[in-house]
């Protein structure tokens, strides 16, 4: 079993390593994927920034080209000089702007504004077309244009974000600046969709605490402004965030936020690039994402896997066969041999571990059922018939003999059948099987003529003494026959003597008085032909007590014949001796169910 256990431990460790690898191995891959996704978003943000920059330059050039229109130049020059009717100039410029930019909405222009040298609006196309005359000189991009700069800006007003480009308009003579043209470009859904197409990521545009527009459902991005706000310092320092995680419903998004330039940066305007994170790579998700292509012969190591599994199973089975099934089979064969009386005992040295223990237990059980006396507690004060019967259990201490049938003496069970029936029985401590507990009968006096007990002692010496007698008992029983046996040889016996299955207990020697039953007497004291030894005295005493108790219980005493009574007691005593291998038996009377009864107690020493 040792190798089997080792093998099971190895298999369990291997399984543990496999499970650990299955759960842990995807983590670095997840981190790597997240890192790659972050790098991808980094590149996308860089590309978006470049696109913004290119767009800004494109719109600046666009309005610079508009500013070179002669009609516009002339009208703005007139307005700057205060010449001409403002309304007429307004209409002229507005018409001209519309003519120059016919598809304003198609190219994403929200409004075009023409201002004169003082920064006053001469005309505008798009938002608030009818209004003119107010000054925009304070707007930095407009002021820059009026000083000669071509520049851009981003405005966030009225909940909208607009990219702005402005260019100066010079006089026809190219000597002075007579005004400027400003273009405001949509910066919302259109831009987000365009970026999504070009960059392959989702886009959201945030102004303050609002998501202005997004390619994703804006209702799911409620946490986005707050998340960006938490990284405002990082954005201020690095002009963008590192990749951040945003949970959008059940989905996990990776995002990078970067600020818009210009005035909008002061208004916390950001563009956010988002990418859906792949689902977590735990083994279940990985398995659910596996395709049939992943299990193709060329892609999956079917052969090594099958070989490995078969090898593991084969090794396990081999070890099981070698260490478990084989020994069990051999043990079973030996038990069968034991049952067929082909062997005396199982060679337990051939079996290791628990099987060895089982073999030893079988040996001990066979030994116990060959020699042992049942424990006292199980059959105390039971009817002697039940005790002497094979089905009963007895401890050999005290038995009711008054109503017992005189059953023939039952020989000791065949050890082999005992072993066969007990194979697999609960394990007994070796001491129980080998050395049954001796029966303590302190009240029994030692036989007065030592010579009469000699045959019993001889039986004990042959069958019981090495197993049943304790050193103290050996020391205390100082009869002649016992004295002939060396105490040390009994106490220091290293192992139980071999089971003597072929030896049947010799007939219990009886005295001459017992050999011939006493004549029948009627309530007479000890008859002349009654035995003179201790047993005879004991039988007579029991008889008298029994008669007295019957009378006391209201039973008839005349029906009890002394000779039959003594014969019954002798018969029972012999049966007890034969069954429990005891030296003698003592009887006592008692009341059972209102009637007189007799019980027997085996005497071991």
């Amino acid at each position: 079993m040792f190798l089997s256990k080792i093998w099971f431990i190895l298999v369990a460790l291997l399984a543990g390593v496999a499970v650990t690898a299955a759960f842990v191995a995807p983590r670095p891959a997840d981190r790597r994927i997240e890192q790659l996704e972050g790098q991808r978003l980094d590149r996308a943000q860089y590309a978006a920034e470049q696109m913004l920059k290119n767009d800004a330059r494109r719109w600046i050039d666009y309005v610079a080209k508009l500013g070179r229109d002669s009609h516009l130049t002339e009208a703005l020059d007139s307005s700057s000089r205060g010449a001409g009717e403002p309304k007429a100039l307004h209409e002229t410029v507005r018409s001209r702007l519309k003519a120059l930019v016919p598809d304003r909405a198609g190219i994403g222009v929200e409004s075009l504004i023409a201002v004169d040298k003082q920064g006053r609006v001469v005309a505008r196309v798009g938002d608030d077309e009818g209004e003119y005359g107010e000054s925009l000189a304070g707007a930095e991009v407009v002021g820059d244009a009026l000083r000669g700069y071509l520049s851009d800006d981003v405005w966030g007003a009225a909940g909208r974000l607009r990219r702005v480009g402005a260019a100066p308009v010079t006089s026809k003579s190219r000597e002075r600046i007579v005004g400027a043209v400003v273009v405001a470009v949509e910066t919302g859904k259109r831009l987000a969709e365009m970026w999504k197409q070009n960059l392959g990521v989702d886009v959201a545009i945030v102004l303050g605490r609002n998501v202005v527009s997004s390619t994703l459902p804006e209702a799911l991005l409620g946490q986005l402004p707050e998340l960006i706000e938490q990284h405002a310092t990082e954005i201020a320092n690095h002009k963008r965030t590192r990749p951040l995680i945003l949970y959008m419903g059940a989905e996990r998004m990776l995002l990078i936020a970067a600020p818009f330039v210009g005035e909008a940066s002061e208004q916390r305007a950001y563009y956010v690039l988002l990418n859906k994170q792949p689902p977590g790579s735990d083994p279940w998700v990985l398995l659910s994402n596996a395709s049939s292509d992943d299990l193709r012969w060329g892609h999956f190591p079917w052969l090594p896997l099958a070989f490995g599994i078969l090898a593991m199973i084969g090794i396990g089975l081999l070890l099981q066969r070698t260490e478990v099934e084989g020994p069990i089979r051999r043990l079973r064969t030996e038990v069968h041999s034991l049952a067929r009386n082909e062997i005396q005992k199982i060679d337990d040295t051939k079996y290791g571990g628990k099987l060895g223990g089982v073999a030893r237990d079988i040996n001990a059980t066979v030994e116990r059922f060959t020699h042992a006396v049942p424990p006292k507690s199980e059959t105390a004060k039971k009817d002697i018939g039940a005790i002497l019967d094979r089905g009963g259990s007895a401890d050999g201490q005290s038995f009711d003999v008054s109503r017992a049938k005189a059953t023939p003496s039952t020989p000791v069970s065949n050890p082999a059948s005992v072993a066969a029936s007990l194979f697999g029985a609960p394990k007994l401590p070796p001491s129980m099987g080998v050395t049954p507990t001796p029966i303590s009968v302190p009240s029994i006096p030692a036989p007065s003529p030592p010579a009469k007990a000699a045959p019993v002692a001889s039986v004990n010496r042959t069958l019981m003494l090495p197993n049943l007698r304790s050193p103290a008992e050996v020391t205390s029983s100082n009869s002649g026959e016992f004295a002939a046996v060396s105490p040390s040889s009994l106490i220091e016996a290293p192992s139980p003597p071999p089971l003597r299955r072929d030896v049947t207990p010799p007939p219990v020697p009886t005295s001459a008085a017992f050999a011939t039953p006493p004549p029948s007497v009627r309530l007479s004291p000890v008859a002349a032909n009654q035995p003179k030894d201790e047993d005879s005295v004991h039988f007579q005493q029991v008889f008298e007590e029994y008669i007295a108790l019957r009378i006391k219980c209201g039973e008839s005493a005349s029906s009890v014949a002394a000779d039959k009574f003594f014969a019954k007691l002798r018969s029972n005593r012999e049966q007890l001796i034969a069954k429990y291998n005891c030296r003698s038996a003592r009887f006592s009377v008692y009341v059972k169910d209102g009637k007189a009864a007799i019980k027997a107690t085996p005497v071991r020493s």
Partner: protein
Amino acid sequence: MMRYRLLSPLLLGGLVALAPTLAAAVGVVRGTVVLPEELKAGRRFLGHWRVENTTVPVQAAPARGDTVVVLLGPKPQVLAPKNTPVEIVGMQANPSTVVVGEGAVVEFRNSDKVAHDLSVPGHPEIMPPERLSPGTVRKQRFGISGEYLVRCAEYPHVVISVIVTSSPFFAAVDEKGGFKLPDVPEGPATLKVWSNGRWVHEQSVEVTPKGADLTIKVSGAANKEPTEQ
């Protein structure tokens, strides 16, 4: 005539006796502030591009009165609170920097055609956000010394610097960078320059009876972080 003859020496003696005292009490501090290019750019919020046209020369940014010199230290330091108007017109504040005494009231008038949401960001207890419709005036009292930036939420370039101080010695810098502080008491003082919404320079000066003529060169690297209280 006899009476005048008798009084003249006494008057003359008294004037002579007071002359040193009067001379030591006041002086004129004048000078020129040389700002670095980034502070003279005229733009606070830059976009991606700012290129000069190739046709006509680019003009310098007009001075909007947002550079102020304040002299701290000389006694007496009492600036009486008074109402100070600031007009927002053409999408810009004029003046964009005001120096007032503690408890003074600044009147913000919106002469634009659009509304302005004015507040001191981050300090609603000083000046909470409030929409200033076109043509209306908002009066805001500043009771605690310090520097405050009043901003418009819709148009961030509209910034008004409100410097609340007890020093009466301050002056706006003209387009050439010149300033003049008359009647400055003699003695040590600290001169600070405020520009583009922050203190950009600070130096110690010794005001003598003859006054002081200073050339203050503001270093770009020495620009301090924006001050907000």
